[in-house]
């Protein structure tokens, strides 16, 4: 049976018995999303790759203890969130350059202009995210980009669903305010 067609749970059960190919299928299924999340939350590609790699290696080591209380995806996002938080704690906070949040209109053909605008909008989002407190940033990314439910975000961050609602509300308001220049 093609490993790519098997469920997360079946792959994890096989991996727990030592099947490294089954674990590789888990890595390729969820790893890119984990690394995207880590890039947005850390704002640094190399740190994101390191956090993702550490999280996946710790997942392999933690397989015997994973009892399926959460989905495999939620478990993996929990691990990468912890690794990213560890890296963040060791880093000096970076000031957000206000110019990164301002709208720029380069003189380009329409399609190129649209692409440039999208790239600038995304850059502005990255900058605005870096200015948010950690849990607001993580909650917004997990909800709006990764599509996790409130209870899954709560499990990932080790908080309650009510707290997640608060983080999301404040995070959305702050991000919208910071990106007003794009209106």
């Amino acid at each position, binding site marked *: 049976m093609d490993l790519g067609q098997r469920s997360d*749970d*079946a792959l994890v059960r096989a991996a727990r018995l030592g099947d490294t190919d089954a674990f590789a299928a888990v*890595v390729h299924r969820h790893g890119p999303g984990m690394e995207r999340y880590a890039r947005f939350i850390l704002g640094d590609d190399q740190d994101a790759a390191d956090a993702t790699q550490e999280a996946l290696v710790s997942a*392999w080591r933690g397989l015997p203890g994973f009892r399926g209380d959460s989905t495999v995806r939620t478990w993996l996002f929990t691990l990468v969130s912890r690794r990213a938080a560890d890296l963040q704690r060791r880093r000096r906070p970076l000031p957000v350059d206000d110019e990164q949040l301002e709208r720029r209109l380069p003189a380009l053909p329409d399609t190129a202009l649209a692409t440039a605008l*999208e790239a600038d909008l995304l850059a502005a989002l990255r900058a605005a995210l870096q200015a948010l407190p950690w849990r607001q940033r993580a909650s917004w*990314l997990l909800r709006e980009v990764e599509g996790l439910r409130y209870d899954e975000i709560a499990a990932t961050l080790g908080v309650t669903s009510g707290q997640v609602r608060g983080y999301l509300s404040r995070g959305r308001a702050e991000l919208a305010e910071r990106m007003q220049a794009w209106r």
Partner: protein
Amino acid sequence: MTGDDSRPLDQAAELARRETVDPRTWDRTASGVMARIRSSVRPGRPLRVSLPDDRGSATHVSERVAVRLLGEALSEDGDLAPSALRLEVQGDRLTVLRVEIVGRYGVDLQALGERAGSAVRAALEGLLLADADAIDVLVSVVDVTVEDPRR
């Protein structure tokens, strides 16, 4: 916050959802993960296959090989999938084998446990482990699933 206020943020969120990691960058991350995992895999404890001969030499099979073969034996039954195999070893002798399985919803779980036990016993004998019939095999059904548990 009005709808207009959130529009740039909604557009940025949509762009973020479409964002993908460069395949070459991802391949480096994934290769690094799998290299570390494969290098960390150990053969496990040696399990005695036969009693020592006249000259005192004995044959062993690694725990990793035994677990793989036992897992394959269990996976032949379409109503169950192995979830964990825990081996208790004294010296180089396997004494207790704890088998955790996931069963298909609606199947008689007691009968399923007995089938799993029989499959494991046959596999242990196939491995020619020393005193295979003296090994305690303890089967637990730890979960049930509506789908094929192997998928």
